[in-house]
Structures are given as structure tokens and as C-alpha cells.
């Protein structure tokens, strides 16, 4: 079947990831790379740019990012300079609505004298314009149009600016790796770095370790070449992806790629919710307001913009880290690969206090590319079950889910202060609540902070974004066998899993340094 995409940027990225995956599985990556741009951009005419050669150069950049990108750049999101040159449009332009009036307030409002009246019309000298927007505000005819670059509009934390060459630049001090710019750039000029090659490598190693183990000693595997198993842990938002097949078939497909088992991150969400409810009862009296901590972009925003509010952050690791550690407590040799809609998770796993828990992060886009590179037709596969987590763990994927899970636990066993949560949907709402908290103006005692609108289902690396996604998650939640968190976790030895963290050691600055040292190893 033909895979459907939301837009051509997604499709282009997918084609490159698929070619890289195929070559990586075949083990001939080095020989294959030079030929990839000729397959994805066959020519002779270019798709959208000036010439086919430029498009192929950009494809080479995408290949580089598919293979991990610039190791010296700590950010997991990179601007492809070569591809970022179509937005030569200036931000403010004078439209037909300009009457060339007598007042021409625009010229007076402009602080840099960039506007003059030529031929009864206002004209902006774009060399002088500093994009302050004063002319737009002053015009009584609303004749000044603001055509802000899509990446800047997408970046709600203000981390994107444009340099002298009119190329997008990411401010490391502000960027929370949410991926909004990656999703919104109409030219696909901003991309997240991929670990597909590393994941394919360990999948192949795992296959070798399995066969060599079987050949030598079928039952004894005390030491030596023990089988190395690779676990895929999938975010509950997967229920809104690959909707042309059933969840069971998606699981079957992931196993066909060579993963030993597929486990729900929602089970980690159950672990986190239970512990978070305990923490809430314990500390909310002292600190007044507690915030969630499972969205890495939200946590990063607190670190970077509101470091004084760190003590309000829940000390719990994210469901991804919790389930990874549970798996490793049961199989210390195992490798864990997270599959989800999130780019920020790619950085979360590198944090000083979390490193070594989850080994790699793949996005749904990357999973789709890997599946198709091996010609795995999901809708033709047999069903493979997926079950462990409760309803509550599964609805973590959408905005309001975490609050609902906590609310249920706090209803069963209330703390001293009644649960009064605010659900912040998207980083703007999060920022507003954090600002109120900073100035002691927040009346709520719990903040659910999700950087993406709609929650994880609105993640930048989702294959689909739409209203149907929420109902898909709820439907998947209702399919759960276990009614609640206590039931879904009753067989696990959770004592051996550490799932508290110390936010104080993760100063924003040191994170950057850590990331650099990780990448240059």
C-alpha cells in the first residue's frame, strides 16, 4: 500500500530515511550513500528549487542528519543552511491597501527611518527594516502585512532568529527541542538528527548474538556470548499512527524488524502516576504547587527560563525512563529503544542523570521508514498482542491524560490539600502558568505541562496531526485489560527501580556541556 503523508516535506524526509535504513540493513551504507540523492531526486527537472543539483546537495545534508548529524552541535535539531534560503521574503510588506495618505503615520512610527513615500505609496527599505512592527500597528488602513517566517512563528519559546544571510539560527539557551520548527518549516530546512543507523546496528548485533548462542549451547547461557535483546518501547500515541493497520499488526511489524519484544511506555506511565501521587501527597503542602515532569521540553523550559521554579518540578523520571529502567532491572544486557512522536526525547536520554536508561530514540517517521525499507506491509501481517498497561497509562498520550490518572489516584487516597490541577496544553499555556507561579499568582496546586498542543499526539514527529488522534488514544485506552495502575503493576518488582531524579544537578548550562561531551566521545 502507498503510505500517505501530511505534506511533501514529511515525504521527502521519509524517502531519505528509508534509503538510509535499507542500506544500513544491507550493510552497504558507505557504498550506497552517493547514489541515494539520485534515487530520491531522479531529475532531470527539480521538484521546487532552482536546479536538481541543489536538491541533491540538500538530500546529502538530510542523509548526514539521518546518520546522526553534526557531532559537535549539542542540539538534536539542526538547520540545513543550504535548504534555508527560500524565505527571502521580508517580514513586513506594504500591500495594495496603502492609500498613500497625508498622515503617513508609518513613516513617523518607524524608528529607523526605513519608510518613505514614493509615487503616493509607502515603501519599506528592507535593508534598514528591523522588523519591529511599529508601522503595522500605526497604519489606519491595515496596509502593512506581517509575513513572519514560519519557523519563527512556530517557535513559541522565541529560540529562532534569522541571521544576516537570512538563514534560521537556533538559540541554544532557549530551544527546548520540541521540534515545532521541524514540523512547520515549509521547505524542510530544519531537521532532527536520527539514530536509525545505530538502532539497525544493534538489531543486527542482536541477531548475531542469538544465532551464535543457539549454535553453541542451546540452554546454557551463563556467560560469554549471551544473547543481547533489543526491546522497543512504544509511546501510547502510536495508537493514532499507522491507522491503516491494527495496533497488533504494528507490533508484529516492529518485531519483524528484529526487536525481541515490544512493551508499552504506558506501563511506565502507570509507574510514574502511582509514585507521583505519593509525592504530591507528601510535598504539595510544603511547596504549594507541583508540576508534572514527563514532557522533556516542558522540563527544559523550566530549567532554562524559570530555574528558580525547579523545586516545583516533580522528581519523577518520565514514563520512558521508568519503563526502560524496569526492563533493564529484568534484563541488564538488554537494549531499549523508545519509539514515539517526540524530538525532545532524543535529548532527554542524554541527560547526565538519565544516561544509560533508554539507549536510543526513534520517531514514528523513522519507524515508518525502517518498516518500509524492509518492505514490511503492516496490513498483511498477523496480529501480535500489546498489553500490560492500564487505561490511565495509555491516555498519557493526550493533553489532560496525566491529570486524569493522578486525579483518580488522589480521589482514592486524597492528600491534605484537595487536588486542584491546571492542564496546560502547549508551551504557551505552560509558560503562562509558570509565570503566574513565579509571581505567586497561580491558584492551582498542580500543573500538567505538555509542550505540544494536544499532548504527545501533537508531537512534531507524529505522522498525523488531527482531531481523530485523541479519540484513537482514548479507544486504545479502553482496550486495556488492567483497570488501573495498581493492577497493571502488581507483578513487577518496582523496589529495584530508581525513578526519582535530582533536577538541581541538571543546570541548563551543564546540560549543554554534557551533550557536547557525549557527542564527541
Amino acid at each position, binding site marked *: 500500500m502507498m503510505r500517505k503523508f501530511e505534506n511533501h516535506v514529511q515525504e521527502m524526509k521519509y524517502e531519505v530515511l528509508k534509503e538510509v535504513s535499507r542500506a544500513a540493513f544491507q550493510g552497504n551504507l558507505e557504498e550506497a550513500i552517493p547514489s541515494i540523492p539520485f534515487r530520491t531526486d531522479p531529475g532531470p527537472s527539480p521538484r521546487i528549487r532552482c536546479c536538481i543539483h541543489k536538491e541533491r546537495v540538500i538530500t546529502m545534508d538530510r542523509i548526514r542528519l539521518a546518520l546522526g548529524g553534526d557531532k559537535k552541535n549539542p542540539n538534536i535539531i539542526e538547520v540545513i543552511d543550504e535548504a534555508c534560503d527560500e524565505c527571502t521574503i521580508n517580514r513586513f510588506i506594504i500591500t495594495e491597501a496603502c492609500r498613500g495618505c497625508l498622515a503617513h503615520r508609518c513613516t513617523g512610527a518607524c524608528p529607523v527611518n526605513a519608510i518613505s513615500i514614493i509615487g503616493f505609496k509607502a515603501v519599506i527599505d528592507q535593508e534598514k527594516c528591523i522588523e519591529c512592527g511599529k508601522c503595522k500597528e500605526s497604519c489606519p488602513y491595515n496596509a502593512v502585512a506581517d509575513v513572519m517566517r514560519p519557523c519563527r512563528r512556530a517557535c513559541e519559546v522565541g529560540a529562532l532568529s534569522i541571521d544576516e544571510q537570512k538563514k534560521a539560527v537556533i538559540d541554544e539557551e532557549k530551544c527546548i527541542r520540541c521540534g515545532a520548527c521541524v514540523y512547520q518549516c515549509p521547505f524542510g530546512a530544519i531537521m532532527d538528527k536520527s539514530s536509525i543507523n545505530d538502532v539497525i546496528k544493534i538489531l543486527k548485533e542482536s541477531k548475531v548474538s542469538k544465532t551464535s548462542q543457539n549454535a553453541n549451547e542451546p*540452554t*546454557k*547461557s*551463563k556467560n560469554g556470548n549471551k544473547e543481547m535483546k533489543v*526491546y522497543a518501547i512504544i509511546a501510547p500515541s502510536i495508537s493514532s499512527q499507522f491507522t491503516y493497520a491494527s495496533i497488533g499488526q504494528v*507490533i508484529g511489524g516492529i518485531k519483524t524488524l528484529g526487536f*525481541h*519484544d*515490544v*512493551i508499552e511506555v504506558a506501563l511506565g506511565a502507570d509507574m510514574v502516576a502511582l509514585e507521583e501521587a505519593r509525592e504530591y501527597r507528601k510535598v504539595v503542602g510544603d511547596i504549594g504547587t507541583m508540576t508534572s515532569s514527563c514532557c522533556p521540553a516542558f522540563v527544559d523550559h523550566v530549567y532554562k527560563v524559570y530555574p528558580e521554579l525547579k523545586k516545583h518540578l516533580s522528581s519523577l523520571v518520565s514514563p520512558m525512563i521508568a519503563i526502560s529502567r524496569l*526492563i533493564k532491572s*529484568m*534484563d541488564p544486557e538488554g537494549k531499549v529503544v523508545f519509539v514515539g512522536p517526540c524530538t525532545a526525547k532524543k535529548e532527554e536520554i542524554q541527560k547526565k542523570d538519565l544516561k544509560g536508561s533508554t539507549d536510543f530514540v526513534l520517531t514514528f517517521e523513522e519507524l515508518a521508514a525502517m518498516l518500509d525499507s524492509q518492505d514490511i506491509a503492516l496490513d498483511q501481517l498477523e496480529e*501480535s*498482542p*500489546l*498489553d*500490560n498497561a492500564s487505561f490511565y497509562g495509555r491516555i498519557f498520550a493526550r493533553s489532560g491524560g496525566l491529570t486524569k490518572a493522578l486525579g483518580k489516584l488522589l480521589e482514592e487516597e486524597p492528600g491534605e490539600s484537595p487536588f486542584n490541577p491546571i492542564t496546560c496544553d502547549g508551551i504557551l499555556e505552560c509558560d503562562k502558568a509558570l509565570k503566574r507561579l513565579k509571581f505567586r499568582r497561580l491558584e492551582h496546586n498542580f500543573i500538567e505541562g505538555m509542550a505540544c498542543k494536544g499532548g504527545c499526539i501533537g508531537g512534531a514527529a507524529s505522522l498525523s496531526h488531527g482531531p481523530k488522534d485523541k479519540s484513537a488514544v482514548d479507544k486504545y485506552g479502553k482496550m486495556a*485489560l*488492567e483497570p488501573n495502575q495498581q*493492577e497493571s503493576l*502488581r*507483578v*513487577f*518488582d518496582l523496589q529495584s527501580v530508581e525513578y526519582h531524579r535530582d533536577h538541581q544537578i541538571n543546570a541548563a548550562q551543564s546540560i549543554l556541556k554534557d551533550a557536547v561531551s557525549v557527542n564527541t566521545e
Partner: protein
Amino acid sequence: MKTINVCVGSACHLKGAYQVVNRLQKIVEEKKLEETFVIKAAFCLGHCTNAVSVKVDDGEVFPLTEHEVESFLENQLQG
């Protein structure tokens, strides 16, 4: 000391792995066998069609139902 690994992966979970684990734990507790057996949950033992999969130490994987738990433990005690 024997470690009894019970698969709680999705396939086994659907066929009642949690009940098997809880039954095992209950009998071990009742008969005060804590020194003899450790009951552990494990993710996929790779025998999804033979659920619920159980493995003693590094031995073979075989299926077990909730009702067979008691006689299984008896056998393990003797064996």
C-alpha cells in the same frame, strides 16, 4: 534457590500471566518456600504461542496455567 521466571509480555499477559505470578507468590508464601524459590516477572521469553511461558533458572521454557501452579511447584521441590 531456584528462580522461576514468568513471562509477562503481552501475549502471556493476555493469557493470564499475572494470575500465574500471583498464584505462585501466594503458594510460596503459604508454604514458606521463600528460601527455595524466587518468583520473577520477565518480558518476552520468545515462546508467545505457548503462553503462559515459564522458565526455571536458565532451563527450558514451557507453558503453565494458573491451575497447574500447585503441582508444578511440587514437582520443582522434588526435582
